[in-house]
């Protein structure tokens, strides 16, 4: 079926056909024809953000909490350049995003026109793919292709740049193809021979560990389900990267907690001491591996990843399996069952004994203070008071992000939105808006630091305009906590520009936007304050004044292996734990 219509109408039509219900955007000169079409329809809801970076992060929050691609509509020039941080963030964390940008008319491209920027040039390295559409004829097919590329294989952000004359001109609309005719069709099924080798290794492994990542979440809920079944059936311990939290429930008996630079002691030592590491959808990031030549020195390593370039990038793998996590887990589980569900029970029982020794170190213990709120305590209370609710957590970047990963438990996938690869301060607040749009009745909390939160605080306007009851849980230490921590440890306690001077009164700030502000500084008032935040039907800025010089532990210093963790002051008292630990 072909229908004549303008390019602007095609954009809306293609989005509807792709099943898009929400677009995050900000209008401007070069996208006015598309905004005119957005005005004349009701199928797609447009959310007006206050900055284009916020639009992309909101779309990321939407995408990560739903599994559907997030869609962004912004104008040319500054609209596009403001989206660059969000695009890079989505690329690093493999989040499917489709960004539509306006562009100056084709006949003015290259003339340094008003609000002209080389958008496809600027965004080439920070998108999975991008297109400049020069003919209206190609527009609808390009948008359909953009969705295909964003969501297939390793997901990622794509961008379609649409000159204004292409939006005005008419051409025939091409419907979404039933099957993509393009060559871009990533492999999803893993090599059966390699899967068989992995299963055989699992049958005899004495100290196995599952090391899972964001790929499990990206593969969909079925992959998480298969992972849970596999872990329960084999009795293997499991740890996860920051990006993979929720794929296996935190309450599960085989859960070791997060691994990595600020991961749990037992998780990192299990990685260091294992003899079979099964990497499922993670990428051996430098925050995970620490010192590479001392990374898990005595293990065979399996790596399941849909992206061939992840394999052997930093760590040599013995069983490289290229394919979609869900498909490979299904095949491996099926094969393992049909071969008689064998595991080395005796050795694994011993392995668990060892792991339980490590657990006794209790690396997350901290000393609550009667005078000031410890950030760990604030999160432990938030966890206690919200864990039974349908809860979505976003974070900004820094100490609070690591504490949130340590002290909050995630029972399901798609409930945890954080900037992992790029580490974008200012991510969490707009992401929480995207999550709340997608899940209007859910409890959405952004765990933030005051410095990160200020980076995109203009989005308060968005939260209030759309009555989004997002809870901004700010752990306010008046410091750039993680920067301060590194300066203390590595730069001779010279705290160069790592404090937050001239902070606003967050309660008044909330009120100025028409939202609610709560300030708490006394540990005795904390629970009541959190309940007040939870019970308020609307956006809340929760200003939690916390201990200013708390450091985030455990910590693997950069350049050290997993068994050289620093446990901090609270747990060094446990002499057996730490001295034994260093020897392992």
């Amino acid at each position, binding site marked *: 079926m072909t229908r004549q219509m303008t390019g602007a109408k095609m954009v809306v039509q293609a989005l509807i056909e792709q099943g898009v219900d929400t677009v995050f955007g900000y209008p401007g000169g070069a996208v006015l024809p598309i905004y005119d079409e957005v005005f004349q329809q009701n199928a797609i809801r447009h959310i007006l953000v206050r900055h284009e970076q916020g639009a992309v992060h909101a779309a990321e929050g939407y995408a990560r909490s739903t599994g559907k691609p997030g869609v962004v509509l912004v104008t040319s020039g500054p609209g596009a350049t403001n989206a660059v941080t969000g695009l890079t963030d989505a690329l690093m964390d493999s989040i499917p995003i489709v960004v539509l940008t306006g562009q100056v008319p084709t006949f003015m491209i290259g003339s340094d026109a008003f609000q002209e920027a080389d958008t496809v040039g600027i965004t080439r390295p920070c998108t*999975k793919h991008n297109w400049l559409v020069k003919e209206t004829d190609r527009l609808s097919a390009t948008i359909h292709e953009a969705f295909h590329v964003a969501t297939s294989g390793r997901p990622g952000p794509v961008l379609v740049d649409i000159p204004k004359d292409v939006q005005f001109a008419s051409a025939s609309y091409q419907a979404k193809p039933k099957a993509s005719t393009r060559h871009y069709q990533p492999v999803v099924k893993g090599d059966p021979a390699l899967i068989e080798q992995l299963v055989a290794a699992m049958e005899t492994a004495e100290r196995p560990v599952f090391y899972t990542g964001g790929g499990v979440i990206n593969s969909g809920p079925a992959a998480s389900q298969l992972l849970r079944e596999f872990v329960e059936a084999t009795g293997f311990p499991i740890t996860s990267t920051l990006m993979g939290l929720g794929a296996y429930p935190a309450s599960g008996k085989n859960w070791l907690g997060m691994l990595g630079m600020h991961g749990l002691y037992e998780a990192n030592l299990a990685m260091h001491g294992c003899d079979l590491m099964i990497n499922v959808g993670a990428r051996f990031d430098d925050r995970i591996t620490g010192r590479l030549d001392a990374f898990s020195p005595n293990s065979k390593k399996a790596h399941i990843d849909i992206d061939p370039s992840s394999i052997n990038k930093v760590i040599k793998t013995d069983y490289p399996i290229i394919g979609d996590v869900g498909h490979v887990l299904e095949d491996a589980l099926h094969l393992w069952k049909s071969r008689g569900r064998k595991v080395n029970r005796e050795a694994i029982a011993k392995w668990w004994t060892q792991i339980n020794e490590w657990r006794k170190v209790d690396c997350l213990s901290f000393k609550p203070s009667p005078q000031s709120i410890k950030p760990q305590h604030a999160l432990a209370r938030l966890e206690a008071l919200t864990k039974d609710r349908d809860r979505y957590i976003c974070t900004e970047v820094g100490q609070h992000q690591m504490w949130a990963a340590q002290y909050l438990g995630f029972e399901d996938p798609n409930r945890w939105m954080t900037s992992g690869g790029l580490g974008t301060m200012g991510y969490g607040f707009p992401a929480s808006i995207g999550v709340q749009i997608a899940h209007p009745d859910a409890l959405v909390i952004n765990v933030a630091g005051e410095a990160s939160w200020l980076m995109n605080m203009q989005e308060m306007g968005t939260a209030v305009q759309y009555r989004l009851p997002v809870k901004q849980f700010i752990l306010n230490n008046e410091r750039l906590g993680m920067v301060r921590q590194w300066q203390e440890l590595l730069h001779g306690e010279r705290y160069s520009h790592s404090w937050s001077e001239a902070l606003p009164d967050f309660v008044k700030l909330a009120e100025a936007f028409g939202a609610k502000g709560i300030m708490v500084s006394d540990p005795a008032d904390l629970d009541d304050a959190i309940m007040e935040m939870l019970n308020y039907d609307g956006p809340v800025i929760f200003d939690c004044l916390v201990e200013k010089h708390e450091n985030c532990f455990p910590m693997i210093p950069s350049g050290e292996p997993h068994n050289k963790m620093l446990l901090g002051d609270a747990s060094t008292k446990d002499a057996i734990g730490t001295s034994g630990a260093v020897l392992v």
Partner: protein
Amino acid sequence: MSALKIKKGSSKHSAYNLRPNFSDVQETHTLAVLVENEPGVLARVIGLFSGRGYNIDSLTVAEVDREGHLSRITIVTTGTPQVIEQIKAQLGRIVPVHDVHDLTVEGRSVERELALIKVSGSGDKRVEALRLADIFRAHVVDSTLESFVFQITGTPDKIDAFADLMRPLGLLEVARTGVAALSRGT
């Protein structure tokens, strides 16, 4: 803070100083990359090399299939075996890339390059240049009373050798196409 064993004031403990324990032998490989002939595709390939710090020794590109909209990019690159593997995987990830072939490992291949070489001189040097050109099967494609432009094809080594011989005889300019390569047989 008593448990900390980091030397204070030191910033040597950066993860970015680390090197993986892969082989550090440098190898030179010739890659044939078949790409969709669309705007920006060459920029994507070159951007990958510059963005990730890979080397380009030589690069040629031209459309080879007009109906199929396919271009062939031939890249000669140098790196450790692990870097070469990464380059191939990263190239394969680019959406308009159809195929990546490592001609250096996929059986035998032929590599040829064309060069135009301008030499000026008179008397014995001029005669000697012509004689050497004959040995190298270079053709004269332009001539004045003071100069020749030679066209030579062959492996990059052969062209290097010819250019080196021309240097004392009055070499003025060299234009080279870069390597084109195909696997032998079918």
